């Protein structure tokens, strides 16, 4: 044994490399709604794209190209990734509220949505709620954003007046940067002029 110290050094070095290699596995799985997206897995050695459900790639270390995708079944997925495969989390619920023109008065139909929002909040406690004002793409932007912020604050007040703790509500405005209906600039669109309530 003493005659081959180099063997042991090599073995020890290999074990060390294995320990530092951070072998990793990545799998693409369907979204909750069934759609399948796309991922790109890259490192210094190269990059591969995965766009089919249940395809996996193994990354041996950061100097080795991620392996060509292979498809695995549900049992293998669970063996590879364990509990996170089946950790269902209820996705956030979105409510859309509309207002009278140029005003922070809710439309009657949107006012009727309030009890549903309160029920969702109660069902999801402890939770965080976002109230987000949105505008369409018709300028004057400053005016629009201020108006949608005023609308968001009006919704916040409604929630607080209904007994929701103020400190779980987050109020913001996305202006015209997060349109519900994609339009060109300077297009009036009633559906885009909205306040969104997100319950998590």
């Amino acid at each position, binding site marked *: 044994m003493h005659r081959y110290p180099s063997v042991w050094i090599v073995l020890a070095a290999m074990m060390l490399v294995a320990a530092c290699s951070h072998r990793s596995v*990545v799998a693409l799985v369907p979204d909750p709604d069934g759609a399948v997206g796309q991922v790109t897995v890259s490192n210094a050695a190269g990059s591969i794209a995965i766009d089919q459900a249940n395809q996996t790639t193994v990354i041996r270390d950061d100097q080795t190209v991620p392996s060509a995708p292979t498809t695995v079944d549900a049992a293998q997925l669970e063996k590879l990734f364990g509990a996170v495969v089946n950790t269902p*989390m209820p996705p956030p619920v979105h409510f859309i509220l509309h207002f009278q023109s140029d005003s922070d008065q809710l439309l009657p139909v949107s006012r009727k949505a309030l009890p549903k929002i309160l029920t969702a909040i109660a069902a999801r406690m402890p939770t965080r709620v976002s109230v987000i004002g949105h505008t369409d793409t018709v300028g004057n932007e400053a005016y629009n954003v201020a108006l949608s912020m005023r609308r968001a604050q009006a919704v916040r007040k409604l929630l607080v007046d209904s007994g929701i703790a103020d400190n779980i509500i987050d109020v913001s405005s996305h202006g015209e940067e997060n349109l519900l209906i994609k339009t060109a600039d300077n297009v009036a669109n009633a559906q885009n002029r909205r306040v969104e309530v997100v319950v998590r």
Partner: protein
Amino acid sequence: MQIILFRRLCLAFLLAGMFSTAAHAFVGVVKTVEGEATITRKGKTLNVVTGMEIEQADIVRTARDGLVGLIFSDDSMIALGPGTEISVDDYLFEPLGKKLSLVIQLIRGTMSFISGQIAKLAPESVQLVMPAATIGVRGTHVLMKVE
């Protein structure tokens, strides 16, 4: 035309400043916890409970029996398996100032990621980082493991 563009830019900065820095922006919330898990934040380690806020630069760790579910402000959802460590390296969801970024590092363990609105508005600003590779996503659900 350039003047209009410049004015719009100024306006965007002005508005982003007005509405985003008023309070600290909400990043995410702990939705589910099983077993033991901790968050390390500014040098302090806190036990994870449901309803707790997630902040940028948080390090979340689960014990061998731990499972944690997080929901972010852009609807991104992350589940952490047992023996897992992640760090929230960057998170910005402020469309008004066009500030969008989600960079999460999986240091060890297992993680499930379901993308949200940041991936829809700016897919290139979503990065899931592992020691041996980085994942870019286009509207998707991905499972990751680092041994």
